[in-house]
């Protein structure tokens, strides 16, 4: 067991960071990803749905979270790739997705999503909105309950990864502030009330990241996330919220007026809307574990 990111994954992370730096501030996560020129890799092939595994996907999302990029489109791309191979016409879906990837630069807004639960047809039905070019005519996909749960778990992991990126960014900003500010002749970082709060956040973040990455690696090895998905999401979202509060505290009055800190704080508080409250996630994780054991 280890948490060492291999060379290929690290290369991907480094590339995402470079693309992120080169992208406009308002660019979406998908545009940052697209900036690498590797989106064609995502087009499903007869042999498999996607070139990027769950761990790689989580590493990408963590990087995008670090700069608070809009992640609605890129997450929906992933969900599309997760769901449509199980649909009635996977080959047609792959072709349509390939067309979409090739043509998406023509005016798609970052808020576009490719696939969503279809409330009208019940929670087991996934549908591409008719407004999405090239994809809107695809047939609906009906998943059995266990497959729906697995898709939902993988979505939770993606949001959790994004949360870790926010947490990491908050922590870095707070540490830099504490290192650069002087209070009564000493650096703020030299006061244990400040440094220990930062360090405890870092430990909690490390535990959350270990849980998320182990769960994602397990998915790649064929071990379903199961109760570990809500647990990883709860730990990651809590880490983001704690780190955001720590950043505000360490910035002091500036923490409630500095645009960067405000943006991070808001981004952290947007997370429970996507995952559910951490308390509910822990409860879900506990009940699922009690039902199914620790598998």
């Amino acid at each position, binding site marked *: 067991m*280890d948490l060492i990111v291999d060379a290929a994954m690290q290369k991907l992370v480094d590339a995402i960071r470079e693309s992120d730096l080169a992208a406009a501030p308002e660019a979406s996560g998908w545009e940052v990803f697209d900036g690498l020129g590797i989106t064609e890799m995502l087009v499903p092939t007869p042999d498999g749905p996607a070139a990027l595994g769950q761990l790689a996907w989580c590493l990408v999302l963590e990087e995008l979270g670090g700069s608070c990029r809009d992640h609605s489109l890129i997450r929906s791309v992933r969900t599309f790739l997760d769901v449509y191979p199980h649909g009635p016409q996977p080959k047609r879906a792959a072709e349509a997705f390939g067309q979409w990837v090739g043509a998406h630069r023509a005016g798609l807004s970052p808020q576009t999503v490719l696939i969503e639960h279809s409330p009208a047809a019940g929670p087991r039905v996934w549908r591409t909105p008719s407004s999405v070019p090239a994809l809107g005519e695809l047939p609906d996909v009906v998943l059995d309950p266990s497959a729906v749960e697995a898709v939902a778990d993988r979505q939770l992991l993606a949001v959790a990864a994004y949360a870790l990126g926010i947490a990491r960014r908050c922590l*870095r900003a707070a540490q830099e502030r504490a290192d650069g500010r002087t209070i009564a002749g000493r650096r703020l*970082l030299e006061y*244990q009330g400040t440094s220990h709060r930062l360090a405890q956040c870092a430990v909690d973040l*490390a*535990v959350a990241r270990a849980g998320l990455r182990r769960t994602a690696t397990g998915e790649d090895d064929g071990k379903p996330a199961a109760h570990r998905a809500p647990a990883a999401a709860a730990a990651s979202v809590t880490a983001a919220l704690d780190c955001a509060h720590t950043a505000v505290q360490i910035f002091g009055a500036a923490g409630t007026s500095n645009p960067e800190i405000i943006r991070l704080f808001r981004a952290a508080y947007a997370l429970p809307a996507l995952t559910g409250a951490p308390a509910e996630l*822990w409860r879900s*994780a*506990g009940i699922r574990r009690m039902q199914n054991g620790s598998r």
Partner: protein
Amino acid sequence: MRHDLDALQTALVADVDAVIDTVGRETDPRECFVRLGNARLLAVHYPVAYGGRGLSLACHTAVSERIGMRGIPDVPHLVTVQAVGCPILTFGTDRQRERWLAPIASGRLLASLLLSESDAGSDLTRITTVAVPDSEGWRLNGRKSWSMWTEWSGIGLCCARTREGTNRYDGISLFIVDLSAPGIAIERVNRAGAEPYYTVTFDDVRLDADALLGRLHRGWALLPVIIGFERGGFDYLTRAQTWLAAAEATLRRLPADRQADLAAGFAQRAFHVENARALSYHAAAAADGLEMDETTVSYAKLASGQAAQSVARWAGEELLPLGVQEDDDDMRALLGRAVAEAPELTVSGGARELQLDLISQDPAIGWTI
């Protein structure tokens, strides 16, 4: 990245099980150590010449964890093989390695770490134990506190002042002390719900010249490495996992509505334990040979201690009042011991505050793992 043990680690764990399965539950743990040593399982990361198998620190990690999970006291093993044996392997002379490492790896020699003193606590620059040169080596005087399993130990790794020093870090040296030497008194300090501490008094104890480990007066530079060898957090993790399993068994016997009430708290502790364990394995896997990164180890140690502590507190504060049947004395006793032992887990081997200091100074905070 691996989410679980690799094939070699899994095979070693099976080897440990096979050896422990041959001994009865009532067998003295020291006999278990000897049998594990005979199978070259106690120090698999030592070179073959010194009784090991020449494997990685990560392999040793899996073995250590398994020994603890099978109910064999893991602290004497960790302190002997890691905190004392690894410094001898790393900083010792050929003669010291030949003299001490094979007996350690064989399980026939246990060791204690004799660093702290009652007035020094975690600040080892304040030690008052002194070693004065004489014609044949050294004479040692002073008193060491808070060591563990010292009644079982044949040797101790002791730090002492060898000169006043140009600064408070200078003038500290390390010695390998034969604990059967005349002038040594070992006193037991009983504790509630946990293994006793020992106080070791040196009254003009003679050490031969070969007792010095590393450079004279320069022992301070070795101390972080020595303590790092001890701080993987695995002794805490075996407690955490044992207590968590007991808590889960108790929880599963409750009615469904009670289980649902406590499920969130249980899941939180289970996640914490499982992933603190991952951090500890990561610290070992990322080591450069035997040398673990000090900051990474601090993350692992702190997460492991806090995880175990959290399980114990949750069991004591939420589960025990509700969940343990009156007739389940074993479970009540196990979780009761956990409650008593838990506070120590962020104190011993380097207090929580020291770990937090180290982590907060890390330039890569939030990125280390």
